[in-house]
């Protein structure tokens, strides 16, 4: 499984691998928002946690259909299915590789982009914490969506429609943590809810993803 992780990371950083795609998208969205909203620093400060979260979520969505589609096209998915790795392990590693190449860079770059949106000083820590806890859930849920739609031509749109509603709880509580943090309020309840959702999907969804993948490669 380590070999699979290393291979996926290596493929991601080589030409055409899509590493940085989500990051660039995130950057552009966040840079464009102040232009659209106008130079009202109070308003920007109020909406910045939500905008950063939406940007991160959409950036995550952008690269989801690559998780299994490439392996499906070149036949490696069939070969992985007959390899001694459990399918649950394969989907977990795929989700981890997606998070390392998409989610983690978003978490790291978010504080820098917070400056552009006039995020209040006390909000930076909680923004990073909420993204660090929430983005793994986005990758795992996205992997499930990708497993559901693998093998469908133009499955990307269908996958977005399937995955976005599943992202709602993570978005609500993640953005709530960031917002309350920025306003200097207590974040404990929202943080626990967000963490609970993340740990829940990380523990359970790989089984669902593996099951639908087995059906899809028939």
């Amino acid at each position: 499984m380590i070999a699979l992780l290393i291979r996926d990371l290596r493929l991601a950083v080589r030409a055409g691998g899509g590493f940085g795609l989500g990051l660039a998208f995130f950057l552009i969205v966040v840079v464009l928002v102040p232009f659209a909203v106008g130079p009202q620093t109070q308003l920007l400060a109020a909406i910045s946690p939500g905008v950063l979260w939406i940007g991160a979520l959409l950036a995550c969505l952008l690269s989801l259909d690559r998780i299994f589609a490439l392996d499906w096209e070149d036949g490696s998915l069939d070969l992985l299915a007959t390899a001694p790795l459990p399918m649950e392990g394969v989907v977990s590693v795929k989700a981890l590789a997606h998070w390392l190449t998409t989610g983690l860079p978003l978490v790291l770059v978010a504080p820098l982009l917070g400056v552009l949106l006039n995020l209040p000083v006390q909000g930076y820590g909680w923004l990073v914490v909420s993204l660090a806890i929430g983005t793994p859930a986005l990758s795992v849920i996205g992997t499930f969506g990708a497993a559901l739609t693998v093998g469908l031509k133009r499955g990307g749109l269908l996958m977005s429609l399937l995955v976005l509603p599943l992202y709602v709880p993570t978005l609500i509580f993640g953005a709530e943590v960031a917002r309350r943090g920025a306003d200097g309020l207590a974040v404990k309840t929202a943080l626990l809810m967000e963490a609970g959702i993340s740990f829940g999907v990380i523990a359970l969804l790989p089984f669902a993803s593996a099951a639908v993948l087995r059906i899809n490669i028939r």
Partner: protein
Amino acid sequence: MLTVTDLCVARGGLAILEGVSFELAAGRALVLRGPNGAGKTTLLRTVAGLQPAEAGEISGGGEAIAYAGHSDGLKAMLSVRENLAFWASVFDAGGVDDALKAFDLVTLQDRMAGTLSAGQKRRLGLARLMVTGRPIWVLDEPTVSLDAASVALFADAVRGHLAQGGSALMATHIDLGIPEAEVFDVGPFKAKPRAAAMDEAFL
């Protein structure tokens, strides 16, 4: 030893072959024959465990099988050696150098797999079998896009595998030059038309 008993396989929810039985002992090769669409690929995928059988039993397969389908499962942006080394570590086996030698890929080992010709890709895909360390090779049209010299390399690899107590189940139309291979014609096992269970589409 791979034993298939009274197997029924389906494609798209319709039974395509039924009553298929054969045995594949260690050191033996079995060549599947049949016209296009007869169900050779479906049979091989079922034996490899990629899809469930409609009826019947397959024993001795599972973890013993190394499957190679129509696509080679290569990553264009990994080098020839990296592709093989990946599969070797997935299957927890070695032999990358031997596999490169057996399929005459040593001089190509640092090339990106995406820059190989179709025949060279195929050779790399077949070399992957040698790093799986698994006894039963299940091969679907292994010689597609290979030239005569490469077919000979492949036949040597299969013979070497059989000599080590392995076995091979292949669907192919050409003569591989492996005289000990038995031929199994799937034609007589064509399933009779009938209303299939249509709940398959909703599973």
